[in-house]
């Protein structure tokens, strides 16, 4: 294998480089983009680890979702509550671009995520999985690559103890100052120290 071929490989990380090769979608918050290495990774899985539904994890995604929803679908698979259309519209997301999927079993949910990611017609796929196995996650990561889609998995913080093929893993927890973010893993970069997004910044 020549050096050129080696450099083409997606799984090769070159030290000291903030990997401009990996396509990203800007998060809409410069402070966050800086930490993420440009934005949310495209064609990849992102895990948002949090024990609360109401501390801004979803809010972090809204600007990117608004951009992604302009030409492709946004699939919400097994959301914990009703996505509130007026709030989404206020954030610039057209509710008519949302596919709201209510699977009956966790297995059906993962199947639907894979289909949606791979289809190429979803800009982003949001899912609240129960306890996906590592092998299923690898399949989802592959499907996201194939469909050039952004897969966001909302998982509890204890999932941080298990390895995951996701390109980005972000832990969120509330503090008195606002939501604190901890970057556990990202493509082409080291994990960083926790940082805080200030209230006014992180709120949906």
């Amino acid at each position, binding site marked *: 294998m020549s050096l050129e071929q080696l450099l083409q490989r997606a799984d090769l990380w070159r030290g000291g480089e903030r990997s401009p090769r990996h396509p990203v979608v800007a998060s809409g918050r410069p402070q966050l983009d800086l930490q993420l290495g440009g934005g949310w990774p495209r064609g990849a899985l992102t895990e948002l680890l949090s024990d609360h*539904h109401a501390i801004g994890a979803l809010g972090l995604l809204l600007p990117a979702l608004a951009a992604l929803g302009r030409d492709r679908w946004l699939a919400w698979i097994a959301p914990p509550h009703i996505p509130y259309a007026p709030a*989404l519209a206020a954030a610039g997301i057209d509710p008519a671009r*949302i*596919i709201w999927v209510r699977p009956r079993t966790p297995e059906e949910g993962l199947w639907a995520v894979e*289909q949606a990611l791979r289809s190429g017609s979803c800009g982003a796929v949001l899912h609240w999985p129960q306890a996906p196995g590592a092998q299923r996650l690898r399949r989802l990561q592959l499907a996201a690559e194939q469909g050039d889609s952004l897969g966001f998995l909302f998982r509890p913080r204890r999932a941080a103890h298990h390895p995951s093929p996701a390109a980005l893993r972000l832990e969120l927890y509330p503090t008195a100052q606002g939501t604190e973010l901890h970057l556990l893993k990202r493509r082409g970069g080291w994990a960083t120290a926790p940082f805080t997004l200030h209230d006014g910044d992180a709120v949906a």
Partner: protein
Amino acid sequence: MLWLSIHLPHLALEVFPRENIDGPWAVHGGPSQRPLIHARNRAAAAAGIAPGMPLGMARSLCAALLCQPRDTAAEQQALTALALWAQQFTPLLHLQPPDGLLLEIAGSLNLFGGLAALRQRVAAGLAELGYHPRLAVAPTPYGSWLLARSRQELLLTELPALRRALEQLPVAVLEPGAKTLQALHDLGRRRIGDLLTLPRDGAARRFDPALLRRLDQALGQLPDPRRPFAVPETFASRLPLPAEVTESAALLFAARRLVLELVGYLRARHAGSMELELTLEHRQRPPSRLPVGLVQPSRDTDHLLLLLKERLERFTLPAPTDAIVLESRQLLPLERDHGDLFAAAGGTALGPAALVERLRARLGHDGVSGLQAAADHRPERAVKSAELAVGKRAGGDTANPASPLRPLWLLPEPLTLTGATACALLHEPLQLRHGPERIESGWWNGDAVRDYFIATDARGERLWVYRERPGENWYLHGLFG
């Protein structure tokens, strides 16, 4: 006029899908007291079993013989289904019961790239459906039929060539009565050519005039008016199964033939199907009906099969199935074969409609919907699930900065904040950060007034709560994501 005849000599066997039969197998007909072998497969032929043989004799020749009664109704249905399928090649065709189809193809030659190419298309399509046809082309319908029936798979476009070919055929193919056939044989007239050398008036007196009329029609000397096959407005095709099926995977195999027939029919009508219904017939129970809805019309074989597969996979067979029926009643015009209103990105593009159909086939129609913001000031009425608008471009900028702050999540039912469940969910105490915002429900809904607040709990979660007026009851209605 140019006619392509399709003769299906093995139709009685082929109406049954035979994916798991490789041993000797036969279909019997005749009177029930004395059944006779009607058709048999190759393995049975190798065992010495021939059509016309009494069933008892066949069984004694081959103990392993699998035999079932002939299903003439299924043969008729198969012929009709084939006529629907063959509509893609020509709008003018006739049934030739019990085992043939006549297609008028003069007008279709250019479209399909010439006679040989068209014949090849028809042959390949029939093979894909599981048939072993004999095909012949001639300038007259009956002439081409006689050739196909006699295994003369010729492509003749001129009447003199047809006449020469027909002259070689035995007179028996004209299906004269037994008496007439005997009389012809007594005269030493074994071939059609021999019959043609007889003086016309004498022959007409001695033999059945219908026989000579049929011969003249075959030669193109008399018109041969036939009733064209009338295309029904909707598609339905039934397939009996040779053995009862207990697994849905085997049903899918059988359904493939029906889907191919449907696609041929849809092509002919320049239409796509908006819904399918697969009916599974059971011996002892009412049939199971599996409807499949589509978001946009399709006539793509693989796509339709995939939808049926997903639908079958989430269905538990209540009883073994002995026949399946595929129906499609709702059709919409569709010009191109593969159509999506906007192309999907990525290599494995599955259009948005195809994605939604696939999800629905597995999760059920109600498991997948759109989301709609409704113009209603009452929070629980301002969101509803909606039909997906596949293919529509996103509307303009929907953001309305003037609207008050709303949570990203709405609870399906407001949660009383005094009960034990609420305590488990929340980390009290709550601090009211924002509000009140007064929202009145309509007088027609009972005059409730709610004062909404944005609150944070001890762990920093942002909640949307309200106090109902009159009264002091607090409720949780939403979460800020």
